[in-house]
């Protein structure tokens, strides 16, 4: 059994396998299928200061080796989270991380401050990369200046591990990563979904109510892997890699490209037990190739 423990800021994960925000609910939805004690962490559903109804149906369409979604951050708001969801999830035996999103800098800060006081939440993931909301979201993550502003503001009011989630819908993701690092992010996670679109030719209409949406699944893996690789060369803080990971070999590719940990998103929909299988697969790989620790594998591209 190899050493699977990894560190992200002050956060210690029992293994590098976590689940991606928006694909794993609050973890509760998967308790019939996996034991959370087997995985490194759960990134919970995107949370905003005020409740959001999300976008109208249809919000999802399958595409070649992937899917487009336009959920639009449907959630009941941070106060509801604190009163009703937190009590239920606070004793889950894994790192429970809140994904924070907003329309203004003040929203992000207020939401982060409220979560800072929750003892069992050791980190937040700042979502400056959601393509499915009209204001805020991705707008903050596609420009170095606004990314820097928002990370700086949240850093001032949030004391624990701050992970900044980056958008692939930019010319150079490494610039945004550097801005986040410079303003005190403890880690970056990438990538969020890739902006895309699909058309129903019979109806001559877009499939999604919002016309465009976010592409996820195996089809985005090469893009995500390339971005993790480039970002690893550009920053010193740890990287949490994701985008199309569907098995242990995919996960190992991300780690070799420079990720300290990984997130599994869309693949949970196809196999609700996949996260645990990937932990086992990484362990087997380390044993087979004689690695003592998974930490030795990060960026170990020959």
């Amino acid at each position, binding site marked *: 059994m190899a050493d699977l423990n990894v560190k992200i800021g002050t956060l210690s994960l029992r293994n590098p396998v976590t689940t991606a925000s*928006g*694909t*794993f*609910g609050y973890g509760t*939805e*998967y308790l*019939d*299928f996996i034991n959370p004690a087997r995985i490194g962490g759960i990134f919970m*559903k995107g949370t905003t200061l005020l409740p959001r*109804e*999300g976008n*109208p*149906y*249809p*919000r*999802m*369409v*399958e595409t*070649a*080796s*992937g*899917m487009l*979604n336009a*959920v639009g951050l*449907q959630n009941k708001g941070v106060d509801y989270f604190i009163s009703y969801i937190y009590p239920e999830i606070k004793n889950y035996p894994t790192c429970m991380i809140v994904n924070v999103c907003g329309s203004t800098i003040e929203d992000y800060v207020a939401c982060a401050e409220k979560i800072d006081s929750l003892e069992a939440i050791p980190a937040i993931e700042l979502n400056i990369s959601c393509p499915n909301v009209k204001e805020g979201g991705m707008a903050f993550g596609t420009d170095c200046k606004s990314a820097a502003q928002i990370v700086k503001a949240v850093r001032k009011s949030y004391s624990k591990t701050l992970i900044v989630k980056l958008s692939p819908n930019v010319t150079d993701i490494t610039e945004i990563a550097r801005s986040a690092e410079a303003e005190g992010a403890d880690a970056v996670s990438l990538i969020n979904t890739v902006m895309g679109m699909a058309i129903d030719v019979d109806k001559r209409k877009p499939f999604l109510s919002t016309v465009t949406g976010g592409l996820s*699944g*195996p089809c985005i893996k090469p893009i995500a892997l390339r971005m993790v690789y480039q970002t690893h060369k550009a920053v010193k803080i740890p990287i949490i890699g994701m985008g199309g990971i569907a098995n242990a070999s995919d996960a190992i590719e991300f780690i070799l490209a420079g990720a300290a940990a990984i997130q599994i998103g*869309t693949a*949970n*929909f*196809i*196999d*609700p*037990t996949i996260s645990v299988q990937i932990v086992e697969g990484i362990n087997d790989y380390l044993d087979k190739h004689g690695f003592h620790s998974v930490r030795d594998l990060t960026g170990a591209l020959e």
Partner: protein
Amino acid sequence: MKKYVADWIVTENKRINHDHFLLKVALNESLPEMMPGQFVQIKIADSPNTFLRRPISIHYADPLNNEIGLLIQLVGAGTRKLAELRKNSRLNLVFPLGNGFSLPDKSPSIKRFLLIGGGAGVAPLYFLGSALLRLGHTPVFLIGAKTAEDLLLIEEYEQLGAVHLTTEDGKVGEKGFVTNHSLLKTNSFDGIYTCGPLPMMQAVAAYAKSFNYPCEVSLENRMACGIGACLCCVENTVSGNRCICTEGPVMNIEQLTWQI
């Protein structure tokens, strides 16, 4: 209700007509409890372009043989793969999902329920009809199709109760749509359940509303996870966007915001 993921074995795959088939699968342990109206999410193996699971209603559950039946319409690549499955192949399912139809209490006063189905929408009504019968009530079926060819497994439904039919050309049953059937003018019921194409369910809902019948419909919104995690499958309801995979697929028409 606890959910499971497991491999099932195909015990039979039977073509019913040019675009429907009945897939029977068995589990090598006892079935958990399943309710009429619940569904399973089927993994389509080795098919990267249909990589999301496909939601299919439970047509019947047979706890004696640890078997369930799935009545499936050939629509696209995913259902085509399922139609090709041979006996003894493996099929991975997540089950049982969603809520079911609400069932009346077992009571000495016999109630009559109208079960209206169209196309492959008849699938869950068989399971529902058996459950109503077991509770001592009377299911009455009203089934609509384009042509006689498109009526599915009618003899099976006749085992459970009276079956009334409509076809668009009138070759079998009454001519027209289910909502034009004379049964609706001459009979009254304690409640209506319906599953089928959206326009049909909306017409049924409008009828039920005008007669103040309690009415439940089974929706088929697009799903990704099927377990309430992704929020892709929502329906706009009187209490906001609700996941059809967990709070449905069966909904009371009072909850819906249909303009009927």
